């Protein structure tokens, strides 16, 4: 009667040992798999980011290192000459100013309009609500390239083809649908009870919007502002077609004409590209945390 028991114990011991061996093997294999994945991840990171590195590296290299048959992987010796050359090109500062005017006007006006519309869509059931939602989702898909012709002809008719106002109007329409849609999500996540409480305390509905909802969707406003900034700063074809005078163009048009008018002068071109891309990236990273906070707050299940 004892023997089977011992046998069982022995078997159990063997099983336990075997199992721990298997577990070790599995965790060892998993660790190896993990570092394999990490290596691939690192490789993907390098491949994706290399073009941006190459832009910055080229921008800081002296001319003879740029035009080298064997590439110099690091910008040593280091120079700022390319940046000086780029900035000294005609119309750089004019076009920076134009870009800032266009972006600023687009972001401010569109934020205000989008907040009002998002409020209506998120807080009211009204006839035509779903039609408006379909409009703002569908209209984001309208190819801007296709609208260039009628936009140009219309603006030409009223003499606004070479003015920033026309460009701002177009950008407003381009960014508004997305902004309304995004803000709608943020507003929908604020408990309507907060406004109701304020209204019981004697606030009017409009006051409740401004005093209760507006402060609470700060992160949403920031997120949509970034979106508007990036869209307006990066847009090329509308600005290229509508703005013909050099001093009235935006930075992307300036950058694109850099190549054609002067042939490939890679150092100054890469410096100019770095300068054009920098505000977008900086703005993006600067507000990243707020953006993330707002969006993760929104994702909490309610």
């Amino acid at each position, binding site marked *: 009667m004892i023997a089977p028991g011992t046998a069982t114990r022995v078997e159990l011991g063997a099983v336990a040992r075997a199992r721990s061996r298997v577990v070790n093997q599995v965790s060892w294999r998993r660790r190896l798999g*993990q570092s394999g*994945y990490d290596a691939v991840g690192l490789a993907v990171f390098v491949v*994706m*980011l290399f073009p*941006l590195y*190459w*832009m910055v590296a080229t921008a800081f290299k002296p001319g003879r290192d*740029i*035009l*080298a048959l064997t590439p110099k992987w690091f910008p040593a010796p280091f120079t700022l000459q390319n940046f000086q050359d780029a900035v000294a090109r005609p119309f750089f500062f004019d076009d920076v100013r134009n870009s800032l005017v266009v972006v600023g006007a687009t972001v401010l006006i569109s934020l205000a*309009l*989008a907040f*009002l*519309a998002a*409020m*209506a869509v998120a807080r*009211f*059931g*009204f006839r035509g*609500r779903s039609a408006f*939602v379909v409009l703002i*989702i569908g*209209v984001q*898909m309208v*190819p*801007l390239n*296709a*609208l260039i*012709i*009628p*936009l*140009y*002809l219309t603006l030409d008719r009223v003499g606004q083809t070479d003015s920033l106002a026309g460009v701002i109007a177009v950008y407003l329409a381009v960014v*508004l*649908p*997305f902004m*309304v*849609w995004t803000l*709608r999500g943020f507003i*929908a*996540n604020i*408990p309507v009870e907060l406004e109701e409480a304020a209204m019981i305390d004697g606030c009017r509905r409009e006051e409740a919007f401004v005093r209760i909802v507006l402060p609470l969707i700060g992160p949403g406003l920031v997120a949509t502002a970034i979106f508007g900034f*990036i869209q307006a700063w*990066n847009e*090329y*074809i509308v600005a290229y077609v509508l703005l013909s005078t050099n001093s009235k163009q935006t930075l992307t048009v300036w*950058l*694109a004409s850099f*190549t054609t008018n002067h042939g490939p002068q*890679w150092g100054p071109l*890469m410096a100019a*590209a770095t300068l054009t*891309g920098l505000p*977008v990236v900086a703005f993006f990273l600067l507000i990243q945390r707020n953006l*993330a906070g707002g*969006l*993760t707050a929104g*994702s909490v*299940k*309610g």
Partner: protein
Amino acid sequence: MGTAVKADAESAAATPSLEPALARRRPRPSRRGPGRRTLPYTLIAPAAIVIFGVLAYPLGMLAWISFQHYGLKELIAHQGDWVGLQNYTTLLADPLFLRVVLVSVVFTLVNVGLTLLFSTLIALLMSKVSRVIRVLLASGLIFVWATPVIVAVDIWQWMFDYEFGVVNYLLTQMRVFGSLIHHNWFENTVQGFSVITVIVVWGAIPFVAITLYAALSQVPDDVLEAAEVDGANPWQVFWGVTAPMLKPIFLIVTSLSTIWDFQVFNQIYVLLNQRPSSNFFTIAIYSYRESFGVTQYGLGAAIAVVMVLVLIAVTYFYVRQTLQTVDLAT
């Protein structure tokens, strides 16, 4: 997992497509009170007017012009000549137009396919790598995503430069294709389009990969574990569990990518120094050339109308899917 990474991914996925899933509250019927009927209309009016005036009205005008002869003379007179379907019959008889449509369709299929393939792989990879690598990958993708298209085009133009381009150097070092120093990628149409595809796909991956990764991280772990316990291999888990759960988001990113890639303009036009040869015409470039290059605005409008019609078909699926996602979420 690290909140920072998750936050990164979710912030980057602030797309109209993902947003509905985050919103859970159904809008309540408005309270009684003065102006409760007109207030919502007052609120949407400014946005609706801008959107309608700058997008919907020009869209109608585009269709109108496509039935007119509208050249330089008509531009000065602000008045087109009605010619009925003549622009469209001209196009159908134009071998270049048929070629351009074919090129655009093939280009779109290849670019959307490659974008989705690489983005899915990167999204899956991001869910497997350790935390540090994930932060690195996510921030790298965000940098690429934030890069303006014109800047990206200039960078790749430099990297593919025939003489001092780093791509030709690296390919030569690989010793597979022989020496590619002084190789001009744009002499050959297929090779030229390959370069354009690299630029488009590189720029498109971050948005799609981060959106897919955000969706992927919402697939419950216990479902995946249950499939593994039942003996499914990773391949079966992906096709049997993950892919069906991500189907709505796949549909959305596929339609968005199709819409974007079918109207690619900047990458080709600026890359080829604003003088692309007709070999590199896609439908957007051809429409631009006809209208602003040779001032045939009527013909250009007809080409644009064809482009819009194709895109409306794709948009239909996108809008339907987005609305369904909203309905499920609210």
